[in-house]
């Protein structure tokens, strides 16, 4: 049994209370320890990724209880990829928060940040459906704290809405799990995969109810229409770096959909049939369209980026709904791209907000410091988000479109292409209003005392990551193809959990 598998959960779980208890009053120490912890997380997750390469999925039995009686963590290629993505994003966001001084505007930023990482990594690694619920709650309760970091009436109000919405989501999750447990008698994912296949036809209806409830829960997480209402206000009013970190949270929803509907309820299974692709595809198309219209109509930059995030989730779910290995591979590439692109744009918007005191699309405000540099960064992020060449969004959309050839091609391609155009128009309008028209208004405002170098460096690092993602698209797609292959084979995962162990 390889103990490194649990390290991405244990490390932040230990670090966070340590930060709260031992260095509550010393922000400098908090920054050092928290950054070191996140850097160690990057190293560990990179190691795990290397370990998962070429090997079958590996299982960690908590308390050494045999599956399906104990809780298991499973490291397969998908989990390793997502954990590494989380760690890298977290490191960049954390350094940005330090550079921009966000972590000093309230208490316990770093502790909450680590708890958030614990929840996200745990959700990716766990092989138990109820444990997934618990990790969802861990990441949610940390996100509640992060969301209202810095305070303010509007933010608190959006926070209450966000919490209420997610509490309802958690309740639905419990309803779903109870229904599934009542029909199959297990909550271990690998065991569920076996039991769901053997279920008698008369019990299938109840399992289907549970499966659709689960889809609703993941749709809440992944901001899929019609359950996306929480996202725009939450992301727009959350502190910039927190919104950037939240870019990974919607991916947790997408991850869970991929995991459950390749492993437990594969397409064409006797109990659930073609249900998911039939439900998921229309919802994904509407999500994409709604996100694009939102980008066009949003009144502020942050809200616009939030809607662009919804649109990218739509694109992602279109690729997932194809439910082919090719579709899943494209979805994974697009997930990595959209996580970084969304985070990048939120950070740029945060820098603009810090200089302009407002993110409304209002051309009467004066010029602000470093507006040229920020305009260039916004331009880069918008290109990536809208899916224009030369950045990875273009490749991602191309892959998604390539994976959805077939009967519905005209509809899907039409929605993707038209929505891309709308997003381009929306961002072009916002960019010219905020960055160009202000030059006509008045004298340039006093430049900021000192550009926060670390914050800018991190934004550039994200842009560089997008460029890297574009240049390395070939090898990366090769990797994602093997990830998708492993998911669709199913038996390696099930065997690694349920096969008898030699001691």
């Amino acid at each position, binding site marked *: 049994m390889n103990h490194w598998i649990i390290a991405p959960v244990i490390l932040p779980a230990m670090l966070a209370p340590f930060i709260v208890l031992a260095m509550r009053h010393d922000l400098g120490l908090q920054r050092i320890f928290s950054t070191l912890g996140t850097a160690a997380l990057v190293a560990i997750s990179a190691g795990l990724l290397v370990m998962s390469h070429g090997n079958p999925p590996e299982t960690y039995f908590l308390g050494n209880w045999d599956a399906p009686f104990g809780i298991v963590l499973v490291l397969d290629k998908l989990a390793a990829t997502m954990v590494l993505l989380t760690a890298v994003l977290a490191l960049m966001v954390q350094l940005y928060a330090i550079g921009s001084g966000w972590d000093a505007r309230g208490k316990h930023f770093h502790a909450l940040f680590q708890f958030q990482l614990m929840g996200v990594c745990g959700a990716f690694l766990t092989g138990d459906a*109820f444990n997934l619920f*618990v990790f969802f*709650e861990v990441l*949610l*309760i940390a996100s*509640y704290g992060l969301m*209202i970091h810095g*305070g*303010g*009436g*509007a933010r*608190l*109000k*959006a*926070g*209450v*809405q966000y*919490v*209420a919405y997610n*509490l*309802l989501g*958690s*309740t639905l999750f*419990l*309803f779903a*799990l*109870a*229904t599934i*447990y*009542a029909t199959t008698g297990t909550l271990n994912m690998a065991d569920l995969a076996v039991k769901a296949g053997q279920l008698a036809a008369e019990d299938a209806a109840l399992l289907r109810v549970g499966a659709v409830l689960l889809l609703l829960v993941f749709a809440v997480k992944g901001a899929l229409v019609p359950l996306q209402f929480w996202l725009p*206000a939450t992301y727009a*009013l959350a502190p910039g770096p927190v919104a950037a970190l939240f870019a990974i949270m919607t991916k947790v929803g997408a991850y869970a959909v991929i995991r459950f509907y390749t492993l437990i309820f594969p397409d064409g299974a006797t109990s659930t049939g073609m249900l998911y692709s039939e439900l998921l595809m229309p919802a994904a198309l509407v999500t994409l369209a709604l996100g694009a219209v939102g980008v066009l109509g949003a*009144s502020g930059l942050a809200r616009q980026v939030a809607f662009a995030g919804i649109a990218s989730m739509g694109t992602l779910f279109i690729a997932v709904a194809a439910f082919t290995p090719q579709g899943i591979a494209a979805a994974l590439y697009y997930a990595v791209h959209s996580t970084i692109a969304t985070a990048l744009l939120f950070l740029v918007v945060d820098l603009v907000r810090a200089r302009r005191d407002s993110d409304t699309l209002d051309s009467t405000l004066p010029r602000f410091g470093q507006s040229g540099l920020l305009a260039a960064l916004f331009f880069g992020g918008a290109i990536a988000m809208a899916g224009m060449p030369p950045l990875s969004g273009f490749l991602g959309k191309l892959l998604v479109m390539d994976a959805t050839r077939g009967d519905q091609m005209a509809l899907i391609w039409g929605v993707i292409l038209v929505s891309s155009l709308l997003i381009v128009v929306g961002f072009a309008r916002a960019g010219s209003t905020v960055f160009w028209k202000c030059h006509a208004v008045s004298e340039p405002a006093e430049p900021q005392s000192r550009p926060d170098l670390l914050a800018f460096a991190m934004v550039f690092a994200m842009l560089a990551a997008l460029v890297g993602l574009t240049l390395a698209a070939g090898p990366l797609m090769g990797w994602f193809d093997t990830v998708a292959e492993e998911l669709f084979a199913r038996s390696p995962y099930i065997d690694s959990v349920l096969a008898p162990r030699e001691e």
Partner: protein
Amino acid sequence: MELLVASAIGLMTACGIYLMLRQRSFPVIVGLAMITYAVNVFLFASGRLTLGLPPILRDDAAGYTDPLPQALVLTAIVISFGMTAVIVMMALGAFLDTGSDKMDLDDDRAEDPEARK
């Protein structure tokens, strides 16, 4: 007994959903609490309803009651309790900061007291 438990879950869920759709934060939180109670009972019932049976299978026992849902429901209770405390504190903070306990966000008008009329 099944009828009683089932109708209790249904009634609590219905009340919870009704309250959640209200405009002010207090009824919404009470509604959330109601739904959590409903789901806790529902989780409990997922191990089948039995009376007076031991939770562990033994050779001399006539039957057993499934212990796992009880562990699950305990976790769910603890989590929902914590979450309710968090949302109460946040709702209180929002009320004290903005002077209104409405759940909806009309953010364009919120900043402009003139437009609120």
